[in-house]
C-alpha cells in the first residue's frame, strides 16, 4: 500500500488514502459511483425526450404533404359533395327513428298488433322511401368522382414510391440503376379536368335534388300524435336548413382550386383539433387526436370521481380514526393493489367487472340511472372503475402522507377546545393538508392518464368522440385512448411512415400532459410547505 513514508515524520492525521483505485480514494470512488448513477439517469431522460421529439417532429411536415395530396388529387373536391350526401343520410336516419316511434305509438298507446301498426305507417314508409331515393343521382356522381380521385392519388403515390426508390439507389451509389427508374410525373391539371368537368352536371343534379326534396317533404303524411307531429315539424326545419346549405356547397365547388397551398398551421391544427383518427383508409387518412384525447380524459375523469372519495376517505380514516390494528391491516392492503399487474386488472375488467356492470345496468329497478341499460360491455365506465382501482393506492398513500404532516398539536388544540373528532378532521386536519391532498389527486390523475393496459383491454376501443348529447349516459359508450392507440398501433405501423410519426406526436402530447400535471402538483405542494411553515 501507499503509506511507506517514514512514520516518525508524519502525524497520524496526515495518514490518509490508503486505498486508491486509478488514483481515486475510496471517498472519491463512492462519489463517482453515485454521481455517475445520477448523471446516467438524467442522460437517459434527455435521450428519451430527444428521441420522442425527433420521431414526432417530422409528423407535421408529413401531415402537411398528406393534406396537400388530399387537395391536389381532388379528394377535397369530392368530399364537398360527399358531405352533402352524408347530411342527407343523417336526415334519412331521423326519418327511420320517427318510424320506430310511430310503430311504438301504435302498438303501445293504441294497442294495435305489430302487423296493424306496420300497415298504419305504410304511407309514411312511402314518403321516407321517396325522400331516401331522391339522393340517388348525387350518390352515383359521388361514386364516379371517388373512383377518379382515387386513381389520381394512386398515380401520385406510385410516383412518390418511384422517387424514393431512385433516391435510395443514388444514396447506395448505383446511379446507373437509378437512372433506369422511370418517374412519371403527375399532371394534376390534366388529371383533374374530368373531375372539374362534372360541375355543370352536378349543378343540375343538385337543383333537381333540392326540388325533389322540397316536393317530397311538403307531401309528408300527418302524424298520429302531437308529440310525433312536433318531431315531423322539427324534421321539416332540419330539411329546410339542409337545403339552405346547397348554395354554399356549390360556391365551394366553383371556387375550389387545387393549387391553393395548405398553410403549415393547418397541419398542426388538423392534428390537435381534428375530430377523426382514421388510418389505412382507401380514401384519406386523418390524424385528429380529439377522439383519443376526449377518450383519455373521460376515462380519467370517471376514474377520479370514483377514486378521490375512496382514496382520500380511506386516508382520513386510516390516519385519524382507525385503531392501530386496523391501520396495520388496511394500509398494506390498499398499497398491495398497486402491486397487481395492470394486465391482470384488465383481465378482471373484461371477465368480471364488465359483465357484472352490464348485468347490473339491465336490472329494471336501476333503469333510472343515466345510460342504463346498456349493451356494450367494454366502455368508459368499465375502464374508469378499473383505473380508479389503480389510482386509489397513489391517492391514498400521498394523501395519508399529507395528513400525517399536519402537526399533532393542531389536533390537540382542536380537541382541547371541545371539538369532536369529526369536527377536528373537517375543520382542521383536512384544510391544513388540503394542498397535499390536491397534489395527491393530481398525481393520481397523472398515474391514470398514463395507464395503458387497462384502457386498451376495457375501454372498448372505438375511435370516435362519444356522443355528449346523451348527457351522463355518455359514460356507457366505448372510447379509445391516447395510450391505448399507441400500444395497439405502434407494433404494426411502417417505421418512419406518417402514421408512425403521428403515434409519436400522440406520445408527445401525453408527455406534456403528464409533465403539466406533475408540475402543478409540485407547485401546490411547495406552496403548502410554506404555508405550514
Amino acid at each position, binding site marked *: 500500500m501507499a503509506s511507506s513514508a517514514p512514520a516518525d515524520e508524519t502525524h497520524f492525521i496526515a495518514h490518509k488514502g490508503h486505498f486508491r483505485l486509478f488514483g481515486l480514494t475510496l471517498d472519491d470512488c463512492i462519489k463517482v459511483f453515485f454521481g455517475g448513477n445520477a448523471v446516467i439517469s438524467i442522460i437517459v431522460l434527455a435521450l428519451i425526450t430527444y428521441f420522442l421529439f425527433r420521431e414526432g417532429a417530422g409528423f407535421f411536415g408529413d401531415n402537411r404533404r398528406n393534406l396537400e395530396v388530399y387537395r391536389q388529387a381532388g379528394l377535397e373536391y369530392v368530399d364537398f359533395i360527399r358531405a352533402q350526401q352524408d347530411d342527407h343520410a343523417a336526415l334519412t336516419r331521423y326519418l327511420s327513428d320517427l318510424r320506430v316511434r310511430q310503430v311504438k305509438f301504435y302498438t303501445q298507446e293504441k294497442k294495435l298488433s305489430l302487423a296493424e301498426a306496420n300497415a298504419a305507417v305504410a304511407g309514411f314508409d312511402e314518403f321516407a322511401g321517396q325522400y331516401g331515393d331522391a339522393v340517388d343521382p348525387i350518390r352515383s356522381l359521388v361514386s364516379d368522382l371517388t373512383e377518379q380521385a382515387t386513381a389520381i392519388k394512386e398515380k401520385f403515390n406510385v410516383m412518390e414510391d418511384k422517387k424514393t426508390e431512385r433516391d435510395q439507389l443514388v444514396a447506395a451509389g448505383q446511379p446507373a440503376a437509378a437512372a433506369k427508374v422511370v418517374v412519371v410525373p403527375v399532371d394534376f391539371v390534366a388529371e383533374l379536368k374530368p373531375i372539374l368537368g362534372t360541375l355543370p352536371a352536378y349543378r343540375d343534379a343538385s337543383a333537381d335534388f333540392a326540388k325533389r326534396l322540397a316536393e317530397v317533404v311538403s307531401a309528408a303524411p300527418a302524424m298520429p300524435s302531437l308529440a310525433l307531429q312536433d318531431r315531423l315539424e322539427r324534421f321539416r326545419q332540419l330539411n329546410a336548413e339542409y337545403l339552405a346549405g346547397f348554395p354554399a356547397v356549390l360556391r365551394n365547388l366553383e371556387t375550389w382550386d387545387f393549387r391553393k397551398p395548405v398553410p403549415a398551421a393547418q397541419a398542426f391544427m388538423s392534428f390537435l383539433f381534428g375530430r377523426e383518427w382514421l388510418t389505412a383508409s382507401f380514401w384519406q387518412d386523418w390524424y385528429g387526436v380529439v377522439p383519443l384525447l376526449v377518450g383519455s380524459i373521460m376515462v380519467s375523469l370517471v376514474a377520479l370521481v370514483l377514486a378521490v372519495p375512496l382514496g382520500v376517505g380511506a386516508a382520513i380514516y386510516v390516519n385519524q380514526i382507525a385503531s392501530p390494528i386496523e391501520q396495520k391491516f388496511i394500509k398494506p392492503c390498499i398499497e398491495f393493489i398497486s402491486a397487481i399487474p395492470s394486465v391482470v386488472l384488465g383481465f378482471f375488467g373484461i371477465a368480471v367487472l364488465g359483465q357484472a356492470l352490464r348485468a347490473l345496468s339491465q336490472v329494471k329497478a336501476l333503469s333510472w340511472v343515466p345510460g342504463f341499460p346498456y349493451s356494450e360491455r367494454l366502455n368508459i365506465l368499465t375502464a374508469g372503475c378499473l383505473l380508479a382501482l389503480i389510482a386509489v393506492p397513489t391517492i391514498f398513500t400521498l394523501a395519508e402522507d399529507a395528513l400525517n404532516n399536519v402537526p399533532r398539536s*393542531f389536533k390537540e388544540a382542536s380537541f382541547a377546545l371541545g371539538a369532536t373528532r369529526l369536527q377536528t378532521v373537517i375543520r382542521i386536519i383536512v384544510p391544513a393538508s388540503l394542498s397535499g391532498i390536491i397534489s395527491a389527486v393530481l398525481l393520481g390523475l397523472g398515474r391514470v392518464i398514463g395507464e395503458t393496459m387497462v384502457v386498451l383491454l376495457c375501454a372498448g376501443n372505438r375511435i370516435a368522440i362519444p356522443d355528449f348529447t346523451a348527457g351522463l349516459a355518455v359514460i356507457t359508450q366505448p372510447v379509445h385512448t391516447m395510450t391505448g392507440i399507441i400500444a395497439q398501433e405502434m407494433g404494426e405501423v411502417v417505421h418512419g411512415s406518417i402514421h408512425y410519426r403521428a403515434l409519436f406526436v400522440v406520445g408527445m402530447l401525453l408527455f406534456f400532459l403528464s409533465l403539466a400535471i406533475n408540475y402543478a402538483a409540485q407547485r401546490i405542494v411547495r406552496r403548502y410547505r410554506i404555508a405550514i411553515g
Partner: protein
Amino acid sequence: MDTLAPAPTPQPPAASVPAVSAPAILPAPAGEILIDIDQVDFFYGASQALHNISLQIQEKKVTAFIGPSGCGKSTLLRCLNRMNDLIDGTRVAKGSIKIRGIDIHRPDVDVIELRKRVGMVFQKSNPFPKSIYENITYGLKLQGVRNQARLDEVVESSLRGAALWDEVKDRLHTSGLGLSGGQQQRLCIARAIAVEPEVILMDEPCSALDPVATAKVEELIQTLRARYTIVIVTHNMQQAARCSDKTAFFYMGKLIEYADTRNIFMNPANPQTEAYVSGRFG
C-alpha cells in the same frame, strides 16, 4: 358572570353534564374547592405514571405544578380535561377526579362539554393555520355560534383579555402563524378563553418564550386569575413563586408536597422539596 356559575348551567346543552351538583354554589368565592383529585393512579399501558395523587385545586387561584422532568406534571394536567383519552392504552386505574363534585370519568359525562369548561394552553404555541380571527372564533363556531356581531365581540374581548388586542387589531384576518412566538402563545390563551372556560390548564406556557414575552404572559396570568381558575406547569421556580397561590411538588409520579406557594418556597416541609426548590437537584 355566567362562566363562574356551577357546572350544570340551566341551558339545554348542559344536559350532557349531569345535574348532580344540585346544591348550586352560585358565584363561588375564591378558595372554594373546584377540582378534587382523589387517590389517582394513572397508567400509560403497563407503566405507571402517577401514584396515588390526591390534590384539591381551589377556585380562582393559580396552582403551580413543579417537579423534575418526567415526574408526571403534564400527565396529571392532561387528566384534568381527559386529553389523555387521545393516547391509546392510557387509563386511570384507581381514584377519581371531580370537578364541582362531578366525577369526570363517569360514563354519562360528555368529554366535549368537559373540554369546553376546562381549556388548555400548550407548551409549544399551536395556533391553527388560519387567520387570527378564525383562530379565536373556532371554539365558538364549534358550538354553533354564527352571529357575526357576537363573534366580533368575543374576538375583541378575548384578545383584550389576552393582552394582544392592541398588537393585532389591524391584522385580524392575517394568518395566526405570522405572529411572533410570544404573540402566538397569547393568541392560544385568547383562543382558550374565547369559549369562556372555568379552568385554564397551562403546560409550560413560557418555556419557548424570551424573558420579555414571558413577563407579558405572567402579567396576563395575574389578570386572568380574577376570572379563571388556572393550573400551570412550570420548570421555572421564580415563575411559580411569582404567579401562583398554591404549589404542588411532584417527584417520580408522586405528590411530595402541596401547600401555599410561600410555604413551599420559604419553608418547605419535605427535604426533597427543599432540595428541589433551592436547585440542588432535578
